[in-house]
């Protein structure tokens, strides 16, 4: 047995390799983590960070290599065995049961004798007091905001006595202020002797929270650095593998004309909750209008209302054509809107669940927009096929052929197919939701370029984003939503991140319900 020595890593990976079919997710990764440190695991989307951590938390089992905890080789075949080794992971997609309460979720799967909700709730309150969390043990998960759910996840791991906490992109869903709160909690944990691994691709966070940063690229371990001695450019280059210019172009809008005029828009979800309340704004041609806000502040409903997919309770959405004629879009479905001659394209958040059909090939997916064309009962298969080939060539989509089901493509290529189809119809209005989510840096920049090209063509672009840095670099104006209301519209060239962050929570704090 190894002695309690500072030099002994609490967690050590040696030569870990994991494959999914032909795809190598991790290749020969070796990494050590020491007690009481906050380690940032930095890498692009698709670089294998999550897969690597999933092998420590027992979700996946490595194909090769070994894992040592406190110097002892271990085999972690299930999350339970990870817990037994005092390792806990907070996944990006929360693993919570919606219809259960916080307490029920936290004690799920534990062997501590008879079910005693009261005693468990007591223990949860103690943990919350110790680190500074706020949790109502009896609240059902489906009534919680994203940040509350995340808190439950963290408490769940601590409740199980974890000494090593792994957080997968914990700040993706948080406002800057919530992020600060989370970081404060993490620092408290570090003081308490816990080890924290935080997966991220955001440079600012690496610098503000971590002691040390380890970088993965394309499934391989690149290097590690003491955070205090690292700088952004250096880390980015190590992460991407070549020098990148961290600048998004922002041409001045040319000859902006009003394209969309939205006033007093109110939308209620099917269960009666107000999702959008009295929203008014205009969108201009040749301009990118950014929409910022915490996840679930009404961004989805807003875009869907414009696209004719959402029942609107009140308000107006006018489309203004080149001659200046106003057309009401409310009460019309996507088909009617298209028949009116309004060329509106929409890149929805859920690419494979809404924008594309995962099980269909590229050509058939191109057909989604055009299958009605032509007379007769049969579909025209030639034109979509040609379009698919065109998109593949133009946007450099990496695919075996146009008859490959799109679900087999990587995230970036899926998005290129979707965006390619949507801009192929030469839209006058382009709606995009979280268009670079999950993409690596190169793909993201390709997409920014495409959007800028549309802007220069005179398209009115509405860009819903989550990364405030990007919004501030790309958009001409930024509208901030908070709990379904407009909390302000700012100039993208002059606004600051902090200002927008505050506006995201200004109306009623995190009040998402009601």
């Amino acid at each position, binding site marked *: 047995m190894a002695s309690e020595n500072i030099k002994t890593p609490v967690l050590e990976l040696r030569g870990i390799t994991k494959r*999914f*079919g*032909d795809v190598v997710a991790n290749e020969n990764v070796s990494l050590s983590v020491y007690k009481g440190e906050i380690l940032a695991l930095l890498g692009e989307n698709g670089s294998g960070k999550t897969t690597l951590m999933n092998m420590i938390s027992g979700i996946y*089992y490595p*194909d090769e290599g*070994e894992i040592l905890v406190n110097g*002892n*080789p*271990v*085999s972690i*075949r299930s999350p339970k065995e990870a817990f037994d080794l005092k390792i806990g992971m907070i996944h990006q997609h929360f693993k919570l049961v919606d219809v259960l309460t916080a307490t029920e979720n936290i004690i799920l799967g534990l062997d501590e004798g008879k079910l005693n909700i009261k005693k468990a709730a007591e223990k949860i309150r103690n943990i919350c007091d110790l680190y500074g969390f706020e949790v109502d043990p009896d609240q059902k998960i489906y009534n919680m905001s994203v940040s509350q759910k995340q808190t439950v996840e963290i408490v769940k791991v601590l409740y199980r006595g974890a000494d090593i906490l792994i957080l997968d992109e914990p700040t993706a869903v948080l406002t800057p202020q919530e992020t600060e709160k989370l970081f404060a909690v993490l620092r408290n944990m570090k003081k308490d002797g816990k080890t924290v691994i935080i997966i991220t691709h955001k440079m600012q966070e690496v610098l503000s929270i971590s002691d040390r940063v380890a970088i993965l690229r394309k499934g391989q371990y690149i290097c590690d650095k003491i955070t205090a001695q690292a700088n952004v450019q250096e880390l980015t280059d190590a992460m991407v593998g070549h020098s990148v210019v961290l600048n998004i172009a922002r041409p001045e809008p040319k000859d902006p004309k009003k394209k969309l005029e939205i006033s007093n828009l109110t939308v209620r979800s099917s269960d009666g909750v107000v999702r959008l309340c009295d929203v008014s704004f205009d969108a201009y041609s040749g301009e990118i209008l950014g929409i910022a806000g915490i996840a679930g502040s009404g961004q989805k409903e807003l875009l869907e209302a414009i*696209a*004719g*997919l959402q029942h609107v309770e009140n308000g107006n959405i006018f489309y203004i054509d080149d001659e200046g004629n106003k057309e009401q879009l409310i009460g019309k*479905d*996507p*088909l*009617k809107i*298209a028949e009116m001659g309004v060329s509106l394209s*929409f890149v*929805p958040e*859920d690419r494979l*669940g*809404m*924008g*594309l*059909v*995962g*099980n*269909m090939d590229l050509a*058939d997916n191109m*057909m*989604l*927009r055009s*299958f*009605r064309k032509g007379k007769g*009962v*049969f*579909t025209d*298969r030639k034109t979509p096929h040609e379009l698919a080939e065109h998109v593949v060539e133009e946007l450099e989509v990496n695919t075996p052929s146009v008859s490959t089901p799109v679900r*087999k493509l990587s995230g970036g290529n899926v998005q290129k197919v979707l965006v390619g189809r949507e801009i192929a119809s030469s839209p006058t209005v382009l709606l995009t939701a979280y268009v670079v989510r999950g993409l690596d840096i190169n793909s993201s920049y390709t997409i920014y370029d495409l959007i800028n090209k549309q802007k220069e063509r005179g398209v009115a672009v509405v860009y819903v984003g989550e990364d405030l840095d990007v919004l501030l670099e790309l958009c001409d104006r930024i509208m901030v939503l908070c709990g379904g209301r407009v909390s302000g519209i700012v100039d993208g060239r002059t606004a600051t991140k902090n200002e927008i962050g505050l506006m995201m929570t200004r109306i009623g704090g995190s009040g998402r319900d009601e």
Partner: protein
Amino acid sequence: MNSAVKVPLVHITRRKNIVWYRAWIVRVVAVIMALILCGIVTMLLVGANPIDVYKTMVVGNFGTARKIWFMLQDLAILLIISLALAPAFRMRFWNLGGDGQALMGCLGATTIMILFRDSMPNWLLIICMLLAALFGGALWAFIPAFFKSKWNTNETLFTLMMNYVATQLVAYFVVFWENPKGSSKIGIINQRTQLGWLPTIGGNKYILIIIVAVLLTVGMFVYMRYSKHGYEISVVGESEPTARYVGIKVRKVIIRTLILSGAICGLAGFLLVSGTDHTMTTTLVGGRGFTGVMVAWLAKFNPFFMVITSFVLVFLGRGASEISTMFGLNDSFGAILTGIILFFIIGCEFFLNYELHFRHGKNKEVQ
């Protein structure tokens, strides 16, 4: 912590691709294994040697010209019902109501056959019977489709219950029109006049039905693969949000597809009443609505593969019933063999979708 580091022995991953011929090898192996097991089961229960058992099964299907025609007719009706269900399943609408829809087709045809036999020429009578049958089947599928599209009512159980409602309705009319009185049976309708009977081709009443089945197979393939409707069905089945996103009216597609599905079931009912049986009983459809679900699913909704899967099931059913007659057993024996074969075919899908990786001798001892 000094115990051996245990490594899971088998590791399962999802398969990315499988070459078509390997997929077929897996399926054929599964069927062969199932047949071997069926042979063993039969041997144990009946005591005959397996070769005899299989011989009996072949004889049951192909023994005489009459048996071949019977088998083909059975196959045709099962195929038509399976074809009817396929577009609904493609849309992920679990239509388990094929039996009821076909029965309503029978009821529609029978009603016209009995009520209007004296008031119109034979050709018109047959056309009206067909229309009534199509309507009956379509109506029975429309009702659950309506509620599914409006309130997302569970269609699996709804269509299932509609089967029993149809059965009781038919039972009512069987007693209502019973002939002779007190028999609780309708008997052969229009036996003397043969009004409302489909014409025979060369004295054979099965050929017409087989032709209908063949045409329908090709037609359904074209409809699902090349028509705009077929494309809409696929999109709705894969993802309703996508369908709405491109402006497909999901409700309309669900209802339209189910009306088509029900009407074709009704057609099968019409063929049974007007083409072969010339009577109506509550068991006329004989559970083909259920078997059709499996035929369609096993063939991955491809009409041409459905010919094969429905043949396998019909062959088994008829073969097993021959065995039961031969050895004086109950004819439910066929259902047991069918069940066994289905288990194997359903189970073998796993090996098409997943890969197993075995780890040999990697268990390390750690001090």
